[in-house]
């Protein structure tokens, strides 16, 4: 793998009021970050042009932060640099106000946990999106593309163990605005069940903190992980500052609401939340579509490059025909997650060049020795198939070449040995061995060597987003190619089936009654 220059330290802009705070910050983080110090709003604004990875505001009173020009400055907003606030005695009202003002914000109450801050700064440097509310590393199978959910309007879920009060609130809400569907749950389990149900189409969740069992912030945390596009709001009658801060930092909530509420206030909040939800969904879908189309482009180029390379090496159509079949098979399989960082890594490290040349090397057997193998007659094919089956059933490896029957000529022996090694590679990759093959008699009377319930699983393949070219990937993929090539040579005597990314192989010992091969 290519050597990279030493990763740079995160660049951090730190504005402070108190020299002692500055010293503490330096002693904690001076080793790990490159820090730009600033004592005034103006200085900070100027320094923002250096594009730091994040901005720390270490003020005694967080309320002053809200009114400071930094907060509202257009440059700062435009750059959307994550804001990390350090404060003493953070007040609950301030937190609620902060949330209203910004998206990427983290709060640390002193004495702070420097490990956490360090982690958050690195996260901001490595992938700032991880800090935002609607982002999570998980494939968003729960998000509906715009337009398809016309039949179900988005609903709001209120989770509170005080069901009478909640029912009353819902009645009032319906009176103000009958268009929004408001659902109710009394605890986390009920809430999660409703969220898992796609018919409910929960877009916003408002949860009280104090409930029996799982608490509100934990519930919202859980929702964030599996359904990051659901807008999360935490409410509480109590001044639980730590909980609120945790909910902001970990659960990335949209708003923190103090009880008691009134219906008009909630109604406005719900409207804002639904707009936010729409924004989350649109962003998610747009990002996925962009990634998908870029990935498509990459794999089309990859296929073209592979074709060109294989054509150069061979002087017959056999290998190329198998390659096309191979591409069709891979296209039918699911791909591992397409992420921006994988695509970027692929481009930066020029991985496709490696992929193409290494794969071509793995296919050396076919590219060089095809001439001898093409001219097999039926008897030859039968001998080869029988020998493969015989050795598979012996369930021994290593001694293959010693055990080979002397009936075979050199090229036949070669093919038998190669097939066995290919099967071994595929079997080991799925934690199987040759004992996975068992003899079966089919209804038509033909004897078949099948894999029974065992399957060879394919998780990642040449048309997946590849971020590193490993030996095992290349071996595995060339083995898969070989299975298709061997079938091409031996015909229906050696068959493969692939369903749901799971591969099975069968060898027909008697005369096959025209067995058909299923693709997908």
């Amino acid at each position: 793998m290519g050597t990279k220059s030493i990763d740079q330290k995160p660049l951090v802009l730190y504005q402070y009021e108190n020299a002692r705070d500055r010293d503490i910050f330096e002693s904690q983080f001076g080793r790990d970050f490159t820090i730009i110090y600033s004592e005034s709003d103006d200085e900070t604004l100027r320094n923002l042009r250096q594009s730091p990875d994040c901005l720390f505001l270490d003020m005694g009173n967080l309320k002053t932060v809200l009114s400071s020009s930094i907060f509202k400055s257009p440059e700062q907003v435009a750059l959307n640099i994550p804001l990390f606030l350090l404060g003493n005695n953070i007040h609950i009202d301030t937190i609620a106000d902060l949330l209203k003002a910004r998206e990427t914000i983290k709060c640390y109450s002193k004495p702070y946990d420097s490990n956490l801050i360090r982690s958050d700064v690195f996260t901001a440097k490595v992938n700032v999106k991880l800090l935002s509310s609607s982002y999570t590393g998980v494939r968003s199978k729960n998000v509906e593309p715009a337009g398809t959910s016309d039949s179900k309007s988005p609903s709001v879920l209120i989770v509170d163990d005080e069901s009478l009060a909640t029912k009353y609130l819902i009645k009032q809400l319906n009176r103000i605005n009958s268009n929004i569907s408001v659902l109710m749950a009394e605890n986390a389990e009920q809430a999660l069940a409703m969220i898992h149900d796609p018919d409910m189409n929960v877009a916003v969740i408002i949860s009280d903190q104090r409930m029996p069992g799982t608490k509100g912030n934990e519930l919202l945390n859980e929702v964030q992980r599996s359904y990051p596009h659901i807008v999360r709001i935490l409410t509480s009658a109590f001044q639980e500052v730590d909980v609120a801060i945790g909910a902001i930092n970990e659960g990335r909530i949209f708003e923190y609401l103090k009880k008691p509420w009134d219906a008009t206030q909630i109604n406005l909040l719900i409207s804002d939340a639904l707009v936010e939800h729409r924004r989350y969904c649109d962003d998610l879908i747009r990002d996925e579509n962009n990634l998908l189309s870029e990935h498509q482009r990459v794999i089309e180029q990859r296929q073209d490059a592979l074709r060109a390379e294989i054509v150069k090496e061979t002087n017959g159509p056999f290998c190329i025909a198998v390659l096309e079949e191979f591409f069709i098979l891979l296209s039918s399989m699911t791909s591992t997650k397409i992420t921006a960082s994988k695509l970027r890594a692929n481009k930066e490290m020029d991985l496709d060049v490696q992929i193409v040349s290494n794969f071509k090397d793995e296919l050396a057997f076919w590219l060089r020795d095809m001439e001898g193998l093409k001219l097999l007659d039926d008897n030859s094919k039968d001998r080869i198939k029988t020998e493969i089956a015989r050795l598979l059933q012996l369930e021994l490896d290593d001694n293959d070449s010693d055990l080979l029957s002397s009936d075979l000529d050199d090229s036949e022996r070669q093919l038998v040995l190669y097939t066995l090694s290919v099967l071994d590679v595929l079997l080991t990759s799925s934690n199987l061995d040759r004992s996975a093959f068992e003899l079966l008699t089919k209804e038509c009377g033909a004897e078949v060597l099948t894999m029974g319930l065992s399957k060879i699983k394919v998780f990642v393949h040449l048309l997946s987003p590849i971020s590193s070219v490993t030996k095992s990937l290349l071996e595995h993929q060339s083995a898969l190619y070989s299975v298709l090539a061997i079938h091409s040579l031996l015909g229906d005597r050696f068959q493969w089936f692939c369903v749901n990314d799971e591969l099975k192989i069968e060898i027909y010992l008697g005369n096959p009654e025209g067995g058909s091969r299923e693709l997908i």
Partner: protein
Amino acid sequence: MSSGHQIKLYTTIDKLLYREALLYQLLLEPKIDLVGEARTGVETLSELKGSSANMLIIEEDLRDNDGLTISEMALLENPSLTILLLVDNPISQQRLSIYLDSGIKSIISKTQSIKDLVKAIFYIQSGQVYIDGEQFRKQEQCVSLEQQLFYELSTREQEVAQLIAQRITISEIASRLGISNKTIHTYKERIFVKMGFERLPELMLFMQRLINKREL
């Protein structure tokens, strides 16, 4: 950082010796339950479905598939699974970005200490991403830091530390030094807190390393 519930841990590490050494350490943590282990990715995926695991520690360099691919497959099934990836060496920020983008919550290198691993486990249990600064630092700092802390202890504390490391009982130490058991207990607590140790073996290993260094 919420720390209410039990961590139900599934461990996927190929080599038995390494896996057991790790598990013996993790067994000592009361908040961690070991609910399963495997050597390969395929085994992991088939067992995870039925297990109660809420956290997975998995090696990047597995025999059958790479840890990243297996992690993605596992997360498809269960998006709430918290995954910690164990890599052989510290990685670049580019690779870190790839892993985090796929939903892995923390990456720990086998060149780091077990304490770093345990610390990461507790930070990520509620689903937060935790990036350890250790990854990006030069290695020399760790051991010398502990030494520094030791020499900052009072003479008496250093004395008591050495005796404790030799597994001499509190009462025996008390009678040797002519002070009460209670005082020795206080010293012990102070030593552990100042040095950042949680268990006796940590102190013992530290003292042994110190002795070895002196003898060189």
